[in-house]
């Protein structure tokens, strides 16, 4: 195993040569929609991103890949505008000097080695020293040992790293990654997170998609939550996380006396609903922490034994639905 190499941009700021004025966001979506026939994949999404790591969070099928493809100029917006450093993303190959894209699909030319793939990308990007750039990118993604093997023989995680190497060869100011940690082992995942953080610290804009909350939590400074094609929430990670935690929760409770427990619970200010459905007690609360503290206390005070307490709407899907409805 090779030690992670500090990339050139870890210490250097983003290239100022053709940089637009600071007021222009790196990525800007203005009322963007994309539909396929009657199916709306992205629905009236607007946001702007500058330097830093942003997580694009949402369940499978939420529209994350469609959004990234719109930003990468690989899909035409049905409505609205997508700008990359102030330029329209659709049908303008010049934006690719600024963008690096790591698509979700694993496909990499199977007959090229990892190094050849990075070299191809460097040559197509027209970087001054393509061989050096390809070598550096391969070192950065920790793929040196396998760099001369055809990518067709790679594991999923190795192909993922080869794609990232290909996207980094020209040191883009905007990096778009679609589920980049898929197939990576924990060590590679940590290494990649460090790399993305260092790029962000050097002034780059990093946007990565994930359907795993923990990945976003560990890496992103800010997040965009998408659900059913709509932007459910956007902003600082902590405030979004608080929204997720403080949303109404419903618990299914089974006890030695559900009816008496319901009466005791409804008097508590943290509880706003208690009903007996099919012989089971369903309790709704707006304060997760207060309720979980109050429940055992109230049950013990009333001499009731708790047999089961289970949340009924803790799936990510229900969290996203709540954020959209809010």
């Amino acid at each position: 195993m090779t030690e992670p190499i500090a990339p050139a941009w870890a210490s250097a700021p983003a290239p100022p040569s053709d940089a637009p004025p600071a007021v222009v966001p790196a990525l800007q979506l203005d009322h963007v929609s994309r539909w396929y026939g009657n199916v709306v994949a992205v629905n009236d999404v607007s946001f702007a991103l500058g330097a830093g790591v942003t997580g694009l969070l949402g369940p499978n099928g939420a529209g994350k890949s469609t959004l990234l493809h719109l930003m990468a100029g690989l899909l035409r917006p049905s409505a609205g505008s997508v700008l990359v450093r102030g330029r329209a993303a659709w049908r303008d190959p010049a934006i690719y000097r600024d963008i690096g894209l790591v698509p979700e699909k694993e496909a990499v030319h199977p007959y090229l080695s990892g190094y050849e793939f990075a070299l191809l990308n460097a040559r197509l990007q027209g970087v001054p020293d393509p061989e050096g750039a390809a070598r550096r990118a391969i070192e950065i993604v920790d793929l040196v040992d396998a760099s001369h093997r055809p990518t067709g023989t790679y594991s999923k995680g190795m192909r993922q790293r080869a794609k990232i190497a290909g996207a980094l060869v020209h040191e883009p100011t905007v990096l778009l990654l679609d589920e980049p940690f898929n197939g990576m082992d924990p060590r590679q995942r940590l290494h990649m997170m460090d790399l993305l953080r260092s790029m962000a610290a050097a002034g780059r804009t990093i946007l990565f998609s994930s359907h795993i909350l923990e990945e976003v939590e560990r890496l992103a400074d800010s997040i965009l939550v998408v659900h059913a094609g709509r932007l459910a929430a956007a902003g600082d990670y902590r405030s979004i996380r608080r929204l997720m935690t403080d949303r109404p929760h419903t618990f299914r409770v089974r006890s030695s006396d559900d009816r008496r427990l319901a009466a005791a619970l409804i008097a508590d200010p943290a509880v706003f609903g208690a009903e007996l459905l099919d012989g089971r007690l369903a309790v709704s609360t707006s304060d997760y922490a207060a309720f979980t503290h109050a429940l055992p206390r109230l049950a013990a005070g009333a001499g009731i034994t708790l047999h089961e307490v289970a949340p009924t709407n803790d799936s990510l899907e229900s969290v996203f639905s709540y954020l959209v409805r809010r």
Partner: protein
Amino acid sequence: MNAFMPLVGVTLRGLLGRRRLALMLLLVALPVALAVLVRIGGGGRNDASGILDTLVIRTVLPLVALVLGTAALGSEIDDGTIVHLLVKPIARRWIIFASAVVAAGLTALLCVPSVILTGLLTSGLGSASVTTTFAFAVAVLVGGTAYTVVFMALSTVTSRALVIGLVYTLIWEGVIAGLLEGTRFLSIRQATLGLAAALGGKRPGSEPLDPVISVAILVVATVGALLIATRQLARFEVRGGD
């Protein structure tokens, strides 16, 4: 154009897969093997146009062009690797141009030697034989380019290019163009045969297309296909994802 040679290189590597190459070599060796058999059997003939017309232009050439033309871009579109080429600061016409050059070049590289060997083995080294062989070689070069580029353009329009190309070759050119006189103007095969006839490779008893019309059909097919493919790739949108 700095990106042209890397594009040529990656297209060439993609097309030279071991199985595909073996299949293509087997196809182009077929007429040569037949000519060798004719030679060994003492059946050498004065005119090679029959075998070149039937075996090469009607069979081997469209099949080789179909496989290489549809694979040059189509396989990258199908497996998604095209995205890596599209997200580069290069005009998409260079991707089309590189694919066309490689696929048409390989078609020529495989089919033209096959024509030359088949022609000379069949009818010897006499001047008439050389003229006929040369005529067919040039026609295969030009017609093969038209076929390949048309099939490549087809692969940018539909993921079923191979099937549609086969139907065009077997049904349209093989049956309909022979039955309905007017449809010959929409046949690359007829234009290729017309060009061969004009250059001295006329098959006895055949009624080829006028040479000017033949050349016009081949040029229009090639240039039109290049324009369509470029337009398609410029408006290309990725499939799938969520």
